[in-house]
């Protein structure tokens, strides 16, 4: 067991720090959260800078156009960019963390050549068309149909909770290609152009008042068969590859961010007198311990996954604890800032946004089912 950098890792960290120190001051001011075109161009410009500096797709394999870094270097990258206050992955999230890794793993050479370079360069944005109004936690119950007509699928149905849909070029879409098969066996994974005729995007307003995601309505959208990833009806397995990536390191840097946030909150508390409240002080102390341990859990999970070859179920343990701790952090923040928590400011925005963490990417209840059944081996109920 060791946590310190090897000489090569220390060198990687030093160069990255230098690059961040030079690059971050050159960035334009961050756009308003409601300005979607502005967010797209800001996020893709950042991705382009990463690409030009050789940091794009840091953990992607070299033959997929990535840097092929070790998992340790990937974590150093996540830690250092977060500590330096670099932009988040933002609109590149689905491309870099879902669709891209799935194409890299499951795609043909042609598909990899077509889809991966534009993701890495920040030229193309992806969104995720998985959930449906009647298929949330029970994702495999999805009903959007794709009917084969020659070299094309004709897709009809609707999707929901599609982040970045308004500015996306591509959608990683799950469709039902065999309505008669058992529900997990009749699904296929398609790459769908968002400007194809028949695609309608309707933004959804969240409880935070922003439009973070959208509904997609698909009316006889034509998708070339060549844009199907994996075999027909094998989309569920292909999707599970993606989801294990999501629960692996996708939220890892945010654990570092939360550690920083606890320290910032302690400074606010010292300045406004909340620190004198023993109970509140101890709540902050407990959160500091929690986020430190969660970062260690990421390091543990990543080291184990590197040795074993695939992300393990440990990601569910992390996701479960992290999402709940983060909501607790926002609640404690509200107590620290007092009446300011009722104003529509940055603290409130975070607190409201945070309410999604125990729902998105698998609810906490689904995570508990996964932990109980896949890790602990408890039987599935009737």
């Amino acid at each position, binding site marked *: 067991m060791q946590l310190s950098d090897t000489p090569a890792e220390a060198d990687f960290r030093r160069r990255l720090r230098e690059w961040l120190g030079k690059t971050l001051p050159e960035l334009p001011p961050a756009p308003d959260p409601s300005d979607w075109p502005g967010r797209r161009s800001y996020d893709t410009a950042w991705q382009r800078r990463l690409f030009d500096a050789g940091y794009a797709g840091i953990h992607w394999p070299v033959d997929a156009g990535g840097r092929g870094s070790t998992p*340790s270097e990937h974590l150093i990258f996540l830690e250092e960019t977060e500590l330096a206050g670099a932009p988040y992955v933002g609109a590149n999230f689905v491309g870099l963390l879902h669709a891209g890794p799935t194409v890299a793993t499951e795609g043909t050479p042609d598909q990899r050549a077509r889809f991966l370079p534009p993701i890495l360069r920040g030229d193309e944005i992806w969104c995720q068309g998985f959930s449906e109004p009647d298929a949330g936690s029970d994702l495999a119950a999805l009903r959007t149909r794709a009917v084969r007509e020659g070299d094309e699928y004709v897709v009809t149905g609707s999707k929901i909770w599609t982040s970045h849909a308004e500015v996306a070029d591509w959608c990683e879409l799950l469709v039902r290609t065999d309505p008669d098969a058992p529900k997990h066996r009749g699904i296929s994974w398609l790459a769908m152009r968002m400007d194809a005729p028949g695609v309608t995007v309707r933004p959804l307003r969240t409880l935070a008042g922003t439009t973070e995601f959208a509904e997609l309505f698909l009316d006889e959208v034509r998708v070339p068969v060549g844009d199907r990833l994996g075999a027909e009806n094998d989309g569920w397995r292909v999707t599970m590859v993606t989801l294990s990536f999501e629960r692996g390191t996708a939220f890892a840097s945010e654990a570092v961010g939360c550690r920083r946030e606890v320290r910032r909150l302690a400074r606010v508390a010292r300045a406004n007198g909340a620190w004198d409240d023993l109970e509140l002080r101890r709540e902050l102390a407990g959160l500091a311990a929690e986020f430190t341990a969660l970062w260690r859990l990421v390091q*543990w999970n990543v080291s184990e996954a590197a040795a074993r070859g695939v992300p393990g179920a440990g990601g569910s343990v992390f996701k479960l604890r992290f999402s709940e701790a983060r909501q607790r952090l926002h609640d404690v923040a509200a107590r620290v800032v007092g009446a300011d928590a009722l104003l529509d400011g940055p603290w409130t925005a975070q607190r409201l946004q945070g309410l999604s963490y125990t729902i998105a990417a698998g609810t906490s209840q689904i995570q508990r089912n996964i932990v109980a059944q896949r890790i602990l081996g408890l039987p599935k109920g009737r």
Partner: protein
Amino acid sequence: MEFRLTDDQDRLRHGLRDILSDRQLTWEELTDVGIFQLRVPERDGGLGLGLPEAVLVFEEAGRALLSGPLVGTEVAAARLGLRGRAEVVRVPARGPVLVPQLPQLDHVLLLRPDDSLVVLPAAALDAAPAPAVDPDRPLWRLEGELPAGEGLPEGEARRVAADTTLLTAALQAGLAARTVTEAVGYARTRAQFGQPIGAFQAVQHLCADMLARAELARVAVYAAAVSGDVEEIAGAKLLADEAAVRGARDCLQVHGGMGFTWEARVHRLLKRAWAWEQAGADRERCLDELAAHL
């Protein structure tokens, strides 16, 4: 960074787990295995290992619910070069000073309210037996004035206190993992409404939370052992105490009425978790240590 067990560490952990899964070893057998000489340098007859190996050993000791002055004896040997059985006892914020298994001890390492540490010969202490909640951890209450005496250098006192807290956290992490095994084992076999109770989500979610707490605590203990950082040690103890105490409570709940009986032995997990929660740094002390670093 490679934050996982080395092959040697994995063998150490599993070797000990196999030995302890059969039966409880006697003190002499534990001594022969080398538990108390783990970190003593090889030139002094020890095994010359580090804190990471020590927490793996104590995690297994916790899983097996071993009794006796394990932590104090190891820390006294590793940090102060003392031979014989020792217990590290902190004067609590409230209530009497309680020493477990006093008649067996050679030394009591007393941590006083000002954080100074004094080594006392156990035989010289004025103490009376006190009825203990944990049947496997009898207690003696110190009587009269606290013994005075020159404290050890501040650095040594700090290291003894930190090691005690970390190794106790390792015991708790092991105990927490044991509560998961016991609860899951029972939930798989106990049937109600025509199926194992472990098939009900209400029970599954209790078990999943137990595992999540135990896993986070285990990793926090390992990380604190590698970094040796006092803040991480306090955090690890906090998380391990929570995992052990709440794990034992949930384990009792999963066992239903059987959990409330003497012979089901679940109560022993809970009573020990309560005892170890107060050993080393307790919850308040850990939180205040963490707050001081914020």
